[in-house]
């Protein structure tokens, strides 16, 4: 019971963090068809900007400056770099953002060194929210989750309840028609790209203070975020929320379970045979927890290629 509750809590908060990063990615993809490889780099950039700013002006200043700065970087990329390669197709856009991801990572290494930096949450956020089964549960985990929930609510309200949201959704469906109606579509696209990047930057600023902040954090999270977006259905905000929670829970539960395929075969009396084969059969679930998201992604692609909530293929 203790394991189940703690794992659920950890899984949900991690899932919500994944959602914070993947929300921007899926919005941008749904709207422009650009799969932004540099998106997770924006997450890392956010963490490092917040680290640099907070060491001089305090934690809160970092939390405010990071999304703004990263959002501006995102808008510059959308305005000045992507249009140059757009004529050559989506593959070139993908390659360009891939190169940008490399450059951002290497620049971070250049200025901050190829090792984790000491980016910590402030002391007054470092307390336990409640005590569960005799151990303290850190408040900051709930803080991360809370940020993500607030963000999702705001984004959802913005997209469904405001005039701006209507224009954005129109620009997503029929850009040419929306433009003919007098809306400035390039500006809408730039704003959406900037917002997506800013969200990733905010996620980095919040999560970097809890998880390690190092130059590999972008790549590590980036691949998982792609999995989230594909499993949820590219372009679907609700889908990526569902997939984030699913993967968050999967990975937090898997760490603590020593199930194996041999154990599964043991249920039908084939345990010894499976153990004799070895290899994949005796691998413990806990040791392959990093593998599960990719297996889940392949499964989804086979069974439901559009993703859990995706409408388009």
């Amino acid at each position, binding site marked *: 019971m203790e394991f189940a509750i703690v794992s659920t809590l950890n899984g949900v908060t991690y899932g919500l963090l994944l959602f914070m990063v993947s929300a921007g990615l899926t919005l941008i*993809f749904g709207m*422009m*068809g650009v*799969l932004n490889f540099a998106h997770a780099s924006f997450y890392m950039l956010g963490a490092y900007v917040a680290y640099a700013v907070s060491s001089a002006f305090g934690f809160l200043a970092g939390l405010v400056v990071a999304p703004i700065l990263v959002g501006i970087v995102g808008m510059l990329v959308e305005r000045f*770099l*992507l*249009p*140059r*390669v*757009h*004529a*050559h197709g*989506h*593959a*070139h856009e*993908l*390659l*360009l953002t*891939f*190169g*940008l991801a*490399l*450059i951002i990572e*290497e*620049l971070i*290494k*250049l*200025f*901050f*060194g190829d090792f984790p930096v000491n980016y910590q949450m402030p002391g007054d956020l470092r307390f336990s929210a409640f005590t569960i089964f005799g151990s303290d549960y850190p408040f900051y985990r709930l803080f991360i989750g809370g940020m993500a929930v607030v963000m999702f609510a705001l984004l959802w309200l913005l997209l469904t309840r405001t005039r701006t949201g209507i224009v954005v959704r129109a620009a997503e469906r029929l*850009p*040419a028609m929306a*433009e003919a109606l007098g809306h400035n*579509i*390039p500006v809408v*696209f730039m704003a959406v790209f900037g917002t997506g990047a800013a969200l990733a930057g905010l996620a980095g600023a919040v999560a970097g203070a809890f998880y390690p902040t190092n130059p590999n954090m972008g*790549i590590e999270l980036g*691949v998982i975020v*792609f*999995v989230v977006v*594909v499993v949820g259905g*590219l372009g679907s905000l609700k889908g990526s929320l569902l997939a984030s929670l699913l993967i968050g829970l999967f990975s937090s539960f898997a760490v603590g379970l020593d199930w194996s395929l041999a154990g599964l075969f043991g249920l039908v009396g084939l345990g010894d045979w499976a153990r004799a084969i*070895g*290899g*994949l059969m005796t*691998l413990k679930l806990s*040791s*392959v927890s*990093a*593998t599960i998201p*990719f*297996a889940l*992604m*392949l499964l989804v*692609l*086979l069974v439901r*290629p559009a993703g859990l909530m995706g409408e388009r293929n």
Partner: protein
Amino acid sequence: MGSMRILALLAVLLALLIAVPPFLDLSWQNALVNVLIASLFALAFNLLAGQAGLLSFGHAAYFGIGAFAALHLMIAVEDGLAFPTPLLPLAGAAAGFLAGLVAGYFATMRSGVYFALVTLAIAELLHSLAPHLAGTFGGEAGISSMRMPWQGIVFGSMLEVYYLTLGWVMLCGLGLWAYTRTPFGRLTLALRDNEQRVLFLGYDAHRAKVVVFAISAMASGVAGSLLAISNETANYSLFATDVSAQVVLQTFVGGSTVFFGPVIGATLFTLFSFLISDLTRSWVFYQGLIFVLVMLFAPTGIGGILYELVRHRRQLDWSRLAWPALQSILGGLLLAGGIVYLTETAAVLFGQDYAMRRSGAAGALPPYELFGIGWEPAGVLTWLLPAVLLLGGGGLLVAGRRQIDGVRGRRSAPAADAAPLGGTP
């Protein structure tokens, strides 16, 4: 250029590759082996990316599988199996082909960015699984073996390994080239250009893609097994994202639209990293920068530019182009110098050594040494030099390009004028 002339060029290149290495020292021979392996890997990758239009971000998987397959066979040979050492890459080819068939079947169910994501996921799956499968991939340490002698050839010296690699790379490279000339090779190009029409012509597009994928994976497997033979060891880091990333960079900088373009990129990058990786820690940054600049300003890559120049060499007015071209090259060099200067300066000033010296100097900024010269961090010359390099180089480059465009009667940078997202211009 006629195919006779291409063949003559290839023959000269081959003669050089055969005749020169015995006179090189060991590290150069080793570097050339790596160049050859990277070239074959890039060619194999480009069969998929450039010709079939399927951008794979996880080709490290098939490269690594080839390496491990060859090593397992090497271990078996060591234990007494009678298998000729020069044919070891066949194991890599077979394993790569089989892995390519399975992975390709799933990956090619989707196209475009989805395809890229599936291939990425497959490679990551292997990368995260491999350290836990001690039997197959030897855990975190990996597996190693020894090259066994065969028919009097000991395979003890790097030169013997080099010739073995050269033979296999030539064989596979020419094989891949010949493949593009077959009807099925033309179908591969058609898949890239218009899959819908391929379907309407009655072909099974999915099956064709799986076959192309498997062939590309097979050649990647050969490249991987050649690496395993040369290193005599391999571990799970062969499946890492950087291996997949490297081949993407090399292929597109070299030029994916020309068959032998990827070889240019692979050769340049491998040689550069061999030559300057001791001098700078920022090599990957330069690689990324070169890649992005190529994507932005020369999407066809170095090979594409060379091909265009050679094709139009008679129509071009060289007497009027020579000066602006020289000016652009000079500007580019100055610009590159400025960027390198700033990058290396940042690497020094933000490095750990300098931080230590600064804390020793009680807050003051001590001078540092770079390119064999001492610099003052707050000196005027320290920052005037890069400013002059960047502005002067940039100015020369822009002016040179404008003149070239004027001579060729072309509008400047047509791609930049295109509507940003497919809307009305």
